[in-house]
């Protein structure tokens, strides 16, 4: 457990909270308190300090905004009184939500339902009544954590789906999911805004309205396309907006989405940097996590996407709670292949269909990623993958048992510079984890699970990836093989991939096919992971 804790705090410290913190989350949480009452300000400051939080106080809303704008990443959470002389607390709340996307807690001596309601509607993640007790403040970190998880999920899912869809011909923009409908996980964190799901009308978002654009998969897909086309470094809201060509979308919408996207990517990157620098052995953390309950499960049934996270995971790694467990579990499959228990734990929470353990392809995909230079595990029964990769254009995995959908093809795979790649990969691994479709859903995404967890690993993974890259450039006839389903490695950064997953059933089953697992020699994993 101790080990877990230090991993946790490492990740928290470096991955999620950019500035140096005490080693034990939630200590060091950076709180901005805004209250025009000097007495309360002082009391709150003292209380928060007792919680070992880092406190900054402000007695004016304007001052608070200024502080927030000056250093975007300097605070984790804002606590503000509702009644302030210079600005309505709700207005401040809106600003913070839109510009900085931080969790905001409202406070007031007035606990009237209507006020509380207003707070919630404006996006407050909590509403505290004065006098405020210590115990209430001790737990405010949960809002930060929740937000990070949600964000990570949101983006990963968006990314994942966007990748899924890229191959499909479902370009109809009518796939703007209504909030109440399928993509409920696409909701903004301010869920009550969902009642404004006729978001197309909010073109003139120059005023800070409560309602916000719902970034559906398609929309996000367009967004990412545009970003990638422009080039991540040169990107700007105006350019993106122009490329996206969505008439009702405003520059502000794009700007705020871009900001979130950037924050999200940078968090991933930081986490990855930190991970590689600390040289955390994947396996070690894996082993600890094997029996976690935390699973990302992404059900795609009847067009409804639901992302479930079993929050019994103890690894409350802010950044990684989505990524790490999934990565770990993927590794679980590759590393402890003969241990059914491990497989089992990674299966927890998944749809039953996945139990059917017919995922050679999946398995091998992951194996590719996890095992560095030795691709000898292409001794996987059905296909000698390594050879295959050198001889064939695409990376095919035999899925005869389970997959009976159309082969997928994709146009290109790009490998970005290491860091970014790694970060994207992490995204992907979690996506792959999370985007498990059940019988009804055809879409699958697999990500190469490049681990950045230890440096050596990184390099070997990269070199592998380069090899793969060469071999993974497909033409559109990738599906020429008699495979029922092709699974492909791909990475996010740089380009997106046209994955044409057939719409038939893909029993996106188990990654951890026991047969497959059993047949892969164990020694393969040793060198890769135990560095």
């Amino acid at each position, binding site marked *: 457990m101790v080990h877990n804790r230090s991993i946790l705090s490492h990740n928290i410290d470096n991955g999620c909270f950019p500035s140096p913190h005490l080693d034990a989350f939630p200590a060091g949480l950076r709180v901005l308190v805004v209250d025009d*009452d*000097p*007495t309360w300000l002082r009391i709150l400051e003292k209380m928060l300090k007792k919680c070992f939080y880092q406190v900054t106080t402000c007695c004016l809303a304007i001052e608070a905004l200024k502080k927030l704008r000056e250093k975007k990443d300097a605070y984790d959470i804002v606590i503000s009184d509702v*009644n302030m002389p210079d600005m309505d607390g709700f207005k401040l709340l809106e600003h913070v939500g839109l510009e900085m996307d931080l969790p905001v807690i409202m406070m*007031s*001596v007035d606990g009237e339902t209507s006020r509380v309601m207003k707070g919630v509607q404006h996006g407050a993640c909590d509403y505290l009544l004065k006098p405020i007790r210590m115990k209430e403040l001790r737990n405010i970190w949960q809002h930060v954590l929740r937000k990070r998880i949600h964000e990570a999920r949101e983006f990963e899912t968006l990314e994942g789906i966007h990748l899924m869809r890229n191959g499909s011909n479902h370009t109809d923009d009518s796939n703007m999911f209504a909030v109440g409908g399928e993509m409920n996980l696409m909701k903004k964190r301010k869920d009550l805004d969902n009642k404004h799901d006729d978001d197309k009308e909010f073109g003139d978002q120059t005023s800070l309205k409560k309602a916000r654009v719902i970034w559906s998969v398609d929309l996000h897909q367009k967004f990412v396309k545009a970003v990638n086309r422009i080039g991540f470094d040169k990107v700007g809201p105006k350019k993106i907006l122009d490329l996206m060509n969505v008439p009702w979308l405003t520059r502000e919408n794009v700007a705020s989405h871009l900001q979130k996207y950037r924050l999200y990517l940078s968090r991933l990157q930081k986490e990855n940097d930190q991970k590689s620098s600390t040289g955390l052995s994947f396996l070690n953390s894996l082993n600890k996590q094997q029996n976690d309950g935390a699973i990302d499960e992404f059900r795609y049934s009847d067009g409804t996407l639901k992302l479930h996270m079993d929050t019994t995971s103890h690894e409350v790694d802010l950044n990684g709670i989505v990524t790490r467990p999934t990565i770990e579990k993927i590794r679980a499959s590759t590393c402890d292949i003969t241990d059914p228990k491990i497989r089992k734990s990674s299966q927890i929470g998944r749809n039953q269909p996945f139990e059917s353990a017919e995922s050679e392809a999946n398995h091998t995909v992951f194996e590719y990623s996890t095992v560095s230079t030795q691709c000898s595990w292409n001794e996987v029964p059905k296909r000698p993958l390594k050879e295959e990769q050198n001889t064939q254009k695409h990376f095919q995995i035999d899925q005869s048992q389970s997959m009976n959908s159309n082969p997928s093809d994709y146009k290109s795979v790009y490998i970005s510079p290491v860091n970014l790649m790694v970060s994207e990969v992490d995204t992907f691994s979690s996506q792959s984890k999370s985007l498990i479709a059940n019988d009804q859903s055809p879409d699958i995404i697999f990500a190469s699970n490049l681990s950045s967890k230890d440096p050596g690993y990184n390099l070997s993974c990269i070199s592998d990836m380069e090899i793969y890259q060469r071999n993974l450039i497909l033409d559109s006839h990738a599906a020429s093989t008699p495979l029922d389903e092709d699974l492909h490695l791909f990475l996010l950064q740089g380009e997106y991939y046209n994955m044409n997953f057939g719409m038939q059933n893909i029993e996106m089953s188990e990654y951890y096919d026991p047969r497959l697992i059993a047949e892969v020699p164990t020694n393969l994993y040793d060198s890769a992971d135990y560095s």
Partner: protein
Amino acid sequence: MDRNNSRRQLAAMKQSLFDQGHLDEQFIQLEELQDDANPNFVEEIVTLYYRDSSRLISSLEQTLERNPLDFNKLDTIMHQFKGSSSSIGAKKVKAESTLIREYCRTGNAEGCRKSFQQMKKEYVALRKRLENYFQLARQAGPMDRASRPK
């Protein structure tokens, strides 16, 4: 000896403040926040409260002098005042504030004014008692920890 006496006196003072309904749980919370880093935290807070709220009192008096009475304005200030008073646990002051706000809601100018007088009396009386309390506390020396009145 003297110290023990002082401490006993102090405890009694506090007890009576609570028994008579002048202070509530919040005061204890403040005492619990007191530590080595801020050994006089409670006194500090109370001082801050009285300093800040005095300007609110003036503002209230000004508003109440107007005719016709601006209930909205009065209510706004009262809301602030109530919030402030809750910070030190000034129970009776808080209760009176709530009453005034209710009178504002119903447009009862007479009620507002009368209630305000009540509240001000309590406000002033409490200040005096707390001043005495802190004076004695300084004599008694640092307390080991916050003690809850029975």
